[in-house]
């Protein structure tokens, strides 16, 4: 009886863990990760914007790198939880070819700048807007993450709170392909 109870409990916990990250729906096909919607396996829409640190972020110049493009905002609690992880990945995988770019969807730059000064993510942050969001298929909820390969093609899209392990696994697969 104890064994049956323990089994039931294990199943319940596993079920909850699976449901806790609704954003991650992945399937691998021959090394290409098909996640989400229309942009996957298509060329990432290009943009060039001034980053909060004054530098210019031109997506074209990131060819040859794996880009983690993170749409976030200061009012998005899960986004703020993710950022230290992305900062860590930038440090850990930066020399192997990863570049993280944050796109703040805050209504004003001052709010984003205040948060970035506090968080110090260590990667480029640009201000997003409706135009950039629409280019990327519509940002209708945060967090929203795209992984772009070395040829500028979107290979994965993660919508909503996603298990960081799933994203990291996808990054590693793309880095290993280079």
């Amino acid at each position: 009886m104890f064994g049956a109870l323990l089994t039931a409990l294990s199943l319940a916990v596993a079920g909850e863990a699976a449901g806790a990250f609704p954003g991650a729906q992945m399937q691998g096909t021959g090394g290409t990760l098909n996640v989400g919607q229309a942009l996957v396996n298509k060329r990432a829409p290009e943009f060039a914007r001034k980053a909060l640190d004054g530098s210019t972020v031109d997506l074209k110049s990131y060819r040859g790198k794996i880009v983690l493009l993170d749409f976030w905002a200061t009012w998005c609690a899960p986004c703020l939880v993710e950022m230290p992880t992305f900062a860590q990945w930038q440090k850990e995988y930066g020399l192997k070819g990863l570049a993280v770019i944050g796109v703040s969807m805050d209504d004003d730059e001052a709010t984003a700048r205040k948060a970035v000064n506090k968080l110090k993510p260590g990667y480029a942050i640009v201000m997003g807007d409706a135009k950039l969001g629409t280019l990327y298929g519509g940002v209708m909820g945060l967090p929203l993450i795209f992984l772009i390969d070395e040829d500028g093609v979107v290979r994965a899209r993660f919508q909503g709170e996603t298990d960081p392990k799933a994203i990291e696994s996808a990054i590693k697969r793309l880095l290993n392909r280079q």
Partner: protein
Amino acid sequence: MKLNLLKSMIVMSALVALVLAFTPRHCAAQWAQAPSTSAFSIPTSAQIQPEDLNRMLSAKGADKPLVLQVGSRVLFAQAHIAGSEYAGPGSQQEGLDRIKTRVQKLPKNTLIVIYCGCCPWNRCPNMGPAYKQLIDMGFTRVKALYMATNLGTDWAEKGYPVASGE
């Protein structure tokens, strides 16, 4: 027999403790009384599901609600429920003032539906304060659109009408 009963109770208590230890915070938050800043503070009876709102908005000649987006302006400009107006963000005083200005001349029995869809319901900082603002102003028919995940997943991807622009 009493010893067996005691053993069973100890085992059950340990199992309950294990379940609670693994329960995500957002579930635990539903058990305690939610602060008014949380979407959980909105009673279930005041929530409306996306399919029901869509049906209401599509019905001809029906009592159409005033639909207010109380979240991010940038996200509103990009995509919002067709026919809705921007009145946010609910988590900030400027947003609450915007709501107040929009509704203060309306009859108190006006049907008002608020929504956000910026992020998961259990994380939304805007819905709770916006709902409270309207209730405190004396409005008696306020509904909160329940979107578990976000506007994309719970509205747009279901084919319900979306518009863009401010």
